[in-house]
C-alpha cells in the first residue's frame, strides 16, 4: 500500500511524507475484587501529509484505501498554510533496541505466568491485589518523497501492580510499575514485590503534617508533576505560541544547577526508543539542560522551520492530525545522594509517592494544586508514617530551581528515567 500511495502522491503533490503504525496489544487484568479480563487490540493507522501548490494538508485513516486518504489530504492542502517544511533525505539508522523477539513471541501462558509469579510472591495478605499486564507488538514505517523509507519493529511490556488496603476508613493504594521492550526478569519482579511490601509496612503507622511550606522528597513516580511542565515548556510549539517560560532563555540557568536532563531516543528498550522519528529525522540524544543551564529545545520539522532551528528528531504523529514535537525518553541524570542522604536532606517534611491526576493545571506555566494520594511523613530524617490525603501546590519551574539533593539511583517510570529529588518549598494544605 505504501509504495502505491507514494507513487500516486508523487503525481498529485510536490512533496509528501507519511507514517504507518501497526500495533497489537494483549492485556491481562486481574482486579482487586477478583474479576479478570483478557483483551487483545489490533490497530493500524496511517497519517499522510502532502504539499500541493505550496500549501500543506493532512489526512489520517485506519483503512487501506490509498486514493481516499490522498484525496482528503489534497483537499486539506487546498485550505492549508504555506509550507515551510524541508523534508529530510535518507540517512543510515542508528542502532537501538526497540523489539525483543522473546517478548514479541510470548503467548498467554508466559504472560499469565508473569502475573502469577507476582501474586504468589505478594500473597493474599492484608491487601487486595490488582494486576495489569500489557504486551504490545507493532511496527512503524516512515516514508517521504525525498527517498526516506525506514521501518522498525516494536515490542513493549508493562506491568502495573496495585495493593489496596483500607486504613481508618480511607482506601490506600500502593502502585508499582515496570516497563520495557522485554519481559520483566525475575530480579525486576522481586524488586517490585519488595517495594510494594515496604510501602505496605509503612502504612501500618499514621502521621500528620501541619500546613505550610515543606521540604519534599519527590519519588520518580511523583516526578511527572514537575517534569510534564518542563517537557511542555521545552517543546518548539510552546515557543511558537509564546507560552513557554523557558524558550527565550537558552544559555541561561533555568533549573537548579544540580539538574541535567537529556532526551534520548537511542537508549535501548524503553517506551520512547526509536531509530528515526515519525517525520523521517534520524534519532539522536539531545541534551536539554546541563547543570541547570538550558541548552536545547525539542522540535519537529514545522516548529524547527518556523523558528529557524534544526529539527531534533522529536516529531510524533498519531493517525489523525498534524505532527507535534514531543519528548521520547526524558532522562534526569542521577546525583550522589543515597536514600539515607535524601531523607536526611528532607529532615522534617514528606516523601511524595503519588499525586492524583498529576500534571500541572497550567501545563506550560507549571502551577499546580493537586491531591497527594500517597505521601509519607519524614521526621528526624526517617519515614515515620502514612500521611492523610493532602493537597500539594506550587510551581513546577520554581520547584525545579529549589532542588537540594539528587538521588544516585534513577528509576524508569514509563518513558521517563529520574532519580528521587528533594525540593524545598512545596506548599502543603
Amino acid at each position, binding site marked *: 500500500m505504501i509504495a502505491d500511495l507514494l507513487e500516486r502522491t508523487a503525481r498529485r503533490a510536490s512533496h509528501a511524507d507519511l507514517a504507518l503504525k501497526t500495533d497489537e496489544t494483549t492485556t491481562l487484568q486481574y*482486579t482487586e475484587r477478583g474479576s479478570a*479480563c*483478557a*483483551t487483545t487490540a489490533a490497530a493500524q493507522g496511517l497519517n499522510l501529509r502532502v504539499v500541493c501548490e505550496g500549501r500543506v494538508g493532512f489526512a489520517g485513516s485506519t483503512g487501506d484505501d490509498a486514493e481516499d486518504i490522498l484525496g*482528503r489530504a489534497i483537499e486539506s492542502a*487546498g485550505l492549508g498554510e504555506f509550507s515551510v517544511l524541508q523534508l529530510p533525505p535518507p540517512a543510515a539508522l542508528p542502532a537501538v533496541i526497540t523489539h525483543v523477539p522473546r517478548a514479541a513471541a510470548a503467548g498467554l501462558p508466559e504472560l499469565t505466568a508473569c502475573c502469577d509469579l507476582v501474586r504468589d510472591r505478594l500473597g493474599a495478605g492484608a491487601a487486595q491485589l490488582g494486576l495489569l499486564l500489557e504486551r504490545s507488538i507493532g511496527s512503524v514505517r516512515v516514508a517521504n518523497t525525498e527517498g526516506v523509507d525506514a521501518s522498525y519493529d516494536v515490542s513493549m511490556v508493562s506491568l502495573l501492580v496495585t495493593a489496596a488496603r483500607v486504613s481508618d476508613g480511607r482506601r490506600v493504594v500502593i502502585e508499582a510499575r515496570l516497563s520495557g521492550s522485554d519481559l520483566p526478569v525475575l530480579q525486576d519482579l522481586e524488586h517490585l514485590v519488595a517495594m510494594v511490601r515496604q510501602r505496605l509496612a509503612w502504612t501500618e503507622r499514621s502521621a500528620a503534617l501541619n500546613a505550610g511550606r515543606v521540604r519534599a522528597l519527590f519519588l520518580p513516580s511523583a516526578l511527572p508533576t514537575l517534569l510534564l511542565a518542563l517537557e511542555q515548556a521545552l517543546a518548539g510549539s510552546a515557543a511558537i505560541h509564546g507560552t513557554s517560560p523557558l524558550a527565550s532563555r537558552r544559555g541561561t540557568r533555568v533549573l537548579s544547577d544540580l539538574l541535567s536532563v537529556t532526551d534520548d531516543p537511542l537508549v535501548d528498550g524503553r517506551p520512547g526508543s526509536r531509530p528515526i522519528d515519525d517525520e523521517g529525522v534520524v534519532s539522536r540524544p539531545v541534551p536539554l539542560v546541563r547543570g541547570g543551564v538550558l541548552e536545547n529545545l525539542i522540535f519537529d520539522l514545522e516548529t524547527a522551520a518556523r523558528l529557524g532551528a534544526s529539527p531534533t528528531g522529536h516529531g510524533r504523529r498519531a493517525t489523525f492530525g498534524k505532527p507535534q514535537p514531543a519528548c521520547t525518553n526524558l532522562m534526569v541524570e542521577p546525583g550522589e545522594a543515597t536514600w539515607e542522604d535524601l531523607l536526611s536532606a528532607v529532615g522534617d517534611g514528606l516523601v511524595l509517592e503519588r499525586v492524583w491526576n498529576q500534571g500541572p493545571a497550567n501545563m506550560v506555566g507549571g502551577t499546580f494544586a493537586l*491531591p497527594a494520594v500517597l505521601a509519607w511523613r519524614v521526621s528526624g530524617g526517617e519515614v515515620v508514617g502514612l500521611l492523610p490525603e493532602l493537597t500539594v501546590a506550587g510551581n513546577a519551574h520554581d520547584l525545579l530551581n529549589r532542588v537540594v539533593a539528587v538521588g544516585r539511583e534513577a528509576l524508569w517510570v514509563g518513558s521517563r528515567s529520574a532519580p528521587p529529588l528533594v525540593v524545598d518549598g512545596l506548599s502543603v494544605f
Partner: protein
Amino acid sequence: MKNLLADALRTARADHAEIRLERTWATAIAYRGSRLEGATTGLESGAMARCLNRGRGWGVASCTGLTGFAALLSRAHELSLAVPVESPIALAEIPVRTEDHLADLDGDVRGVPLGEKRALLERLNQEILSSDRRIVDTHVSYEDRVTERWFATSDGAFLYEIAPSVRLAAGVLASEEGFVERAFESWATRGGWRSVQSADNVFRTAARRAVALLSAPRIKAGLYPMVLDPRCMGALIHQGIGHLSEADALDERADVEARFPLGKRIGSDLLTVGDDGSASSLPGSRPFDDEGAPTQNTLLVQHGVLVGRLHTRATAGRIGRRPTGNARAGSFREVPEARLTNTYIANGRGTAEDLIRDVRHGLYCCDAMGGEMRHGHFSLRTGYAQVIRDGQLTDLARPPVIMGDLSEILGRLDAVAGDFRWNQQASLCARAHSGRVPVCEGAPHVRLDGAPVAGDAT
C-alpha cells in the same frame, strides 16, 4: 453487514458472544489566534468482540477495519478461557431486539466542503479577535462526526444506528497591564450542518467574559450563600452524585460503597437527581448502550436520598437488578463500563430572580471549569461569578473555587427554581478503560444557604 455479523456469530463457541462495529467520518479544524492550525478529515473503522464463558472472565479482541469478525470472536473466546475468576460473572438479561435507528443527519456534514466549514470557523474566530483590543489569543475548534454503529449478540440481537454530532469550542485569552484572563465556551449537538448555523453566540460570550474578567475583583475565602446557575450545578452533580453512582467503579471501591450506600441521605429534600440516556438529541443520548441494552431515565437521588445506581449487564447481574443502559465505551477500542449520559437535577418552582432576591450578601456562581471528588470531599472550579448584594446581582468576580464535604453542601440546598435547562456544552467524560464519552448535564438554578469558597481560581 447484518449477514456478515450473523455468519460470524454462528461460529462463536463462547457461552456469550457479542460484537460491536463502528465507522466514523470526522472533520477537525482549529485556529490558534489568526493562524489555521489544521483542517483535516479522517475515516476510522473498527470492531470489538467480547466473549464470556462460565467460570471465566471477559475475553476481548478488537481491531481496526471491518473484516475478520469470526477470527475476532475466536480470539476473544480463547482469551476468556485464559482467565479463571473467583466469582462467576452473571449477565443480567436484556431484551433481544432487532432495530435500526437512523437519526436525522440534519444537513449531512459529510456533504459540506471542508472549505465551507473552515470559512465558518474563520468568521467566528475573527469576530472574537476583532471584538476587543485586549483579546490577545484564541484557540478555537470545529469538529464534526457521522458515526455508524452495529451491535450483535449470540442471542440474536442486532442493532444499528447512524448519528451525527458537531462540536464547537473557543478558548479566549485577554490581557491588559500584565493581567491575563481566560474564558472558555463550547457547544455540542447531535445534529448536523443546519444546527451549526445557530451557534454564533457561543464564541461571542467567551470573548465578552474574558475581557470583563480582567477588571473583576477576587473573592475572599469564606462561607457564602450562593445561587448556582444550571451549568455550575450540573457540573457539581456530575462530579459529586454522578460518579458516585457508576456501579462498576463502586465495585472496585468498597470504601466508597460503604460510605454512600443506597438509602443514605446525601442532600436536602429538594434534591432529586437522575441520568437519562434516552433524552432526545443530547450529547449523551443513544437509543441503546454499548452492550445493546436500551437507554432509560434512571433515578439516582430522590428527595435527598440515594435510590439508584447506573449499571452494566454484569454489575446488574451481580445484584439481581436490571441494566440501566449505561454501558458506554469511547470507541470500538474500549470496553464498556457503567458511565454517565445526560445527568440532571429535577425542576423546582419559581425563577432565578426569586432565588437571588432573598440573598443579602452572596455569590451567583456560573459555569464550571472542572472539578474533583475524592473521599466525599469535592472541589469545583467555577467559570465566573457575580456578587449578590441585597437581592441584586452586582459586580462580576473572578471565578471562585467551591469546595467542601458533598453531603454537607447538598444538605444546604434550600431552593430549586423551575427554569430547568440542558447544557449543550461539548463535555467529554474520561475513564481509563472505557475512554472518553460525550456527556451532558441539566439543572435549574439552585440556592445553597452557605457553601465554602476557597478563593478565586486564578
